[in-house]
């Protein structure tokens, strides 16, 4: 009985440690991967217009519509950043924590995701010398923070963070559909 | 009868405990200015005889720098200056200030300062009087 419980606790704990195995070398981080062109295509659209300002202004309005708060805007480089902070608490993680607590016989309280900050970063720039064609590229990503926990006698302080680039193509399609409607222009892909 | 009362009180306590575990809801007056803020508005605003807005903003920035503030942003067309500093020697307290400069008439600028100490708006008139005294010195030292 005790062996089974111990095995269960080991299983749960090892699933937690499974995340921290490989370290990426710095050189690799500066190289384009196979997914880079696909990601770029997903995140980029072209608009036939001279008015970069109107594109940025409409993007800010679309992001506001989606619940984002504008945080930074640098017009000279066509940069716009908007974020929204939401709760990241998940039922699945709570249940997992209960089982970890139970299987470790009350010794391990797993920290769970609590707080997330979803950010949208947008760059608009002219793509030809006459500035009649504008490229709009947006990136959605989120940073998630965990709460605190307990491992035997040791208190695990809160604030453990992880970042996730959001790669759902539907999300980007919907954003550009809204932007297209807001500026009354058609969004071209490459 | 007493046992039932004990159980009921436990359940009630449990319900109340859970109540404190609900996310706080925004009040109706979240985006409405408070009484205190409306009263302080006149103290926060003062008119100065300055030639143009840019000159006034330079004076504001100079005054803030004299007071040890770090200028965070300055927007000339809309007359906004935002600055912050620590309440030294105590590095745990932060003081932020937003100053707007608006033309009231020809050669007359309306300057409004909004100070926030540790994320709470300052309602003491003396603070603003001190600021405007420093600002006046900074604005008219250029003339001399």
């Amino acid at each position, binding site marked *: 009985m005790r062996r089974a419980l111990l095995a269960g606790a080991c299983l749960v704990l090892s699933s937690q440690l499974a995340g921290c195995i490989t370290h990426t070398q710095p050189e690799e981080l500066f190289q384009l991967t196979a997914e880079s062109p696909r990601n770029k295509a997903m995140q980029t659209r072209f608009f036939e217009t001279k008015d970069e300002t109107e594109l940025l202004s409409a993007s800010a309005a679309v992001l506001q519509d989606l619940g*984002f*708060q504008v945080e930074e805007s640098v017009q000279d480089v066509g940069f716009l950043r908007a974020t929204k902070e939401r709760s990241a608490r998940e039922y699945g993680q709570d249940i997992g924590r209960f089982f970890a607590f139970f299987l470790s016989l009350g010794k391990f309280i797993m920290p769970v995701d609590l*707080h997330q900050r979803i950010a949208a970063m947008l760059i608009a720039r002219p793509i030809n010398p006459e500035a009649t064609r504008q490229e709009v590229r947006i990136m959605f990503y*989120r940073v998630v923070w965990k709460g605190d926990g307990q491992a035997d006698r040791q208190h695990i302080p809160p604030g453990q*963070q992880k970042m996730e680039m959001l790669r759902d193509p539907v999300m980007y399609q919907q954003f550009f559909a809204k932007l297209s409607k807001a500026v009354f222009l058609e969004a071209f892909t490459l | 009868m007493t046992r*039932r009362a004990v159980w009921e009180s436990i359940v009630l306590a449990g319900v109340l405990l859970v109540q404190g575990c609900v996310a706080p809801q925004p*009040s109706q007056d*979240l985006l409405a200015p408070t009484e205190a803020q409306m009263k302080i508005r006149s103290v926060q605003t003062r008119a100065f005889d300055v030639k143009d807005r840019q000159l006034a903003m330079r004076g504001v920035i100079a005054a803030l720098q004299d007071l040890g503030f770090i200028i965070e942003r300055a927007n000339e*067309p809309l007359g906004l200056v935002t600055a912050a500093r620590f309440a030294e020697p105590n590095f745990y307290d932060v003081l932020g200030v937003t100053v707007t400069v608006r033309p009231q008439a020809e050669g007359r600028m309306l300057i409004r300062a909004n100070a*926030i100490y540790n994320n709470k708006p300052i309602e003491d008139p003396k603070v603003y009087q001190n600021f405007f005294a420093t600002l006046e010195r900074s604005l008219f030292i250029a003339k001399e």
Partner: protein
Amino acid sequence: MLHNHRHMSRRLSTISRSGGLLLVAGLCLLLQGCPTPYELRHQAQWDSREQIWLSEESQVKLRVAQSRVFDTTDRRRTLEAAVDTMQDLGFMVEVLDEQLGMVSGKKFEPLERPSIGTDPYYHLYDDQSLLIFTKSYHTWGPFWHRSDLVRLTITVRKRNDTQLVVRASAQYYLRAVEDPAPYQKFFRTLEQALFLQGQLVE
């Protein structure tokens, strides 16, 4: 004798009922991994990525509550009035762009402030850092402060040749403010600053 029995059984049933209720409540809390009150104040969902995208219905409803049409084309004056209103509300203005027509500010409501004693890190909190780069993997102290953030973004856009649309959106304790009442009060203050009457968007 029978009267006593019935009385007894009734007492037992009420005790067991409220006891059962308590047990169920306790089990619910337990199954969620014994969350602390701070954690319970965070809304739970099955997939936290749902928060990225708002549903269409809530978007439309929000848009109506958050927008007003003004009979003016003076964007600068409208923005100045918006900044005035933000100052009245005690917001620190962060973003101000006349050509893009937007103002954005933040303030902290003392919702999570420790009731006993002080947390010196509380006011040093830098919410601008997207990723908190520290040598030690975990961050501490300021974590409890994040939920206190109240953000307000106001956009001013041209509706047609004679009108502007002003849209205000606020964020409070990790949720978008969806109640129309705070926005009504906000626009009343804005109208006073502008001396204009704001109309609802159709």
